[in-house]
């Protein structure tokens, strides 16, 4: 009991820290036109490579400095968050929906359904994911929807594998047998009895996947395979920052920190939520 309370307490702290950052980043992204101090696309050669605010030579209004074209870094990060979050939510929920549904069916029904689904997952996972993503985008073309689709196509297997295992474990429990004796149909048992018990895992995976989707999008942007090159993306900013690392380290460091914080927050947030909502762990 005591142990449960400690882990719940820690989970609470994690939940607030990670959730706080995500909320801040999300709000900034949604309200970008209102909160961004500058136009993220406005170039000004007079203002190029301004340092962040605490270093001599900084300009007020350009808190995190500017890049080599004189664009405001903070505003670019805020606007870049829009694409990051859209990709995160769209790709992760698509992957989650497909993967969890197939995993639930495979794990609960077993038999040939499980054999077919598990075989597909095995084959799927044999592809190295990043290469797979690049290949897919090359085929589907660049643009928001193909990036989302590519990530979902690659990552549904994460959900499928985990949820299959959990659903399988749950279906061996006596309460499932009891429901069967009571006269419930198989699909009803799967949805009403088994599904609620795997929801905490689905939520945790979903959150983790949002972080992963952001990384994949950044990687695609980095190799210039993502969305249009005009809109700022975190991966795109990182790619540019790499070129001017010796003159303006901040153009590389701030987007990296933003990316890492966001990805970490997603994974921690998911874990904390799972601990929090798993009734048995309390």
């Amino acid at each position, binding site marked *: 009991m005591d142990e449960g309370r400690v882990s719940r307490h820690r989970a609470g702290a994690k939940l607030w820290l990670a959730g706080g950052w995500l909320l801040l980043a999300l709000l900034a992204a949604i309200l970008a036109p209102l909160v961004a101090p500058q136009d993220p696309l406005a170039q000004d050669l007079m203002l190029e490579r301004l340092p962040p605010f605490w270093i001599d030579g900084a300009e007020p209004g350009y808190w995190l400095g500017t890049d080599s074209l004189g664009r405001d870094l903070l505003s670019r990060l805020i606007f870049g968050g829009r694409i990051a979050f859209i990709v995160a939510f769209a790709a992760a929920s698509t992957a989650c929906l497909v993967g969890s549904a197939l995993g639930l069916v495979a794990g609960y029904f077993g038999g040939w359904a499980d054999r077919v689904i598990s075989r597909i997952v095995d084959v799927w996972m044999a592809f190295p994911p990043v290469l797979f993503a690049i290949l897919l985008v090359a085929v589907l073309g660049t643009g928001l929807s193909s990036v989302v689709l590519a990530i979902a196509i690659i990552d549904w297997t994460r959900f499928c594998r985990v949820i299959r295992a959990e659903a399988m474990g749950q279906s061996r*429990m*006596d*309460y499932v*047998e009891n429901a*069967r004796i009571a006269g419930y149909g198989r699909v009803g048992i799967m949805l009403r*009895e088994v599904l609620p018990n795997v929801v905490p895992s689905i939520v945790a995976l979903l959150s983790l996947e949002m972080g992963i989707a952001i990384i994949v999008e950044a990687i695609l942007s980095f190799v210039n395979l993502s969305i249009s090159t005009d809109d700022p993306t975190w991966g795109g900013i990182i790619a540019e920052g790499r070129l001017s690392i010796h003159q303006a380290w901040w153009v590389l460091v701030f987007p990296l920190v933003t990316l890492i914080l966001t990805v970490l927050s997603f994974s921690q947030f998911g874990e904390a939520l799972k601990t929090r909502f798993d*009734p048995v762990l309390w």
Partner: protein
Amino acid sequence: MNTCLDIAKLSAVLPNGQRVLRSVSLTVQPGEVRALVGESGAGKTMIGKAVLGVLPSSVRIVEGDMRLEGEDLGKLDPKARRTLIGARTALIPQDPLTALNPSRRIGPQMTDRLVRILGWSGEKADKRVRQLLDEVQIRDPERVLRCYPHELSGGMRQRVLIAGAFVAEPRLIVADEPTTALDVTVQKQILRLIAQLQREHGTAILFVTHDLGVVAKISQKVSVLYAGKVVEEADTAALFSAPQHPYTRALMAATPRYTDPFASLKPVDEAVLAGLAAEIASADKAWRRPHG
């Protein structure tokens, strides 16, 4: 009156052809408690699952039939069978923790079945569930109905499950070692409770146990099972006063006595087991599986 449960010559095999049930015949009359006793692995749970239609997919029934109040379960289509079993039977399981859904509150878990499967009104179901919680001596039904299973003790969970088993007035309850997973002090209370509800509701019970002490306390009839084979079948009183089969006698000799706790460590007599094994091996040789 129809026999409540009539199992005749039931045999079941594993995929490798090994028999887990060997021509099992047993009956449970209405309102009667039939104990099914045997060591772990004898196939007691298998028989219960066969009756309730939840055998593991690897186990196949190859001969024999089962009648529930005269209805031949093997002749019904799967849907009708499920409906019949759902309406007339219930299970009191061995492990009260995993038999309740961990993510659902007790209240909806209990009423859900009455409403969805048996078509009762929500109000009637609610009233009935409360009545049963009262019968199993749960003092604070309000709290219990709102609890998740893990918030209750093992004894409380088993009370909930007993209430759940009796709630829809089944004709037959399969109780699969319902006290085995509980503390010794709680075991007696739960056993007494099952006996009391059984008497008041007049429900027939197939009571699975490995404990002859429990058999003596609760049952009127008893079947002794060894390696999937019923070796002896008798009135409980008769069995204890004059056990016929050597295995029954050996089992009694190995049963713990309160005056001599170390007696519980005694294994069943080996010579008897060797004799039985030979008997079963020759029976298996003679037995030809139906349908090749």
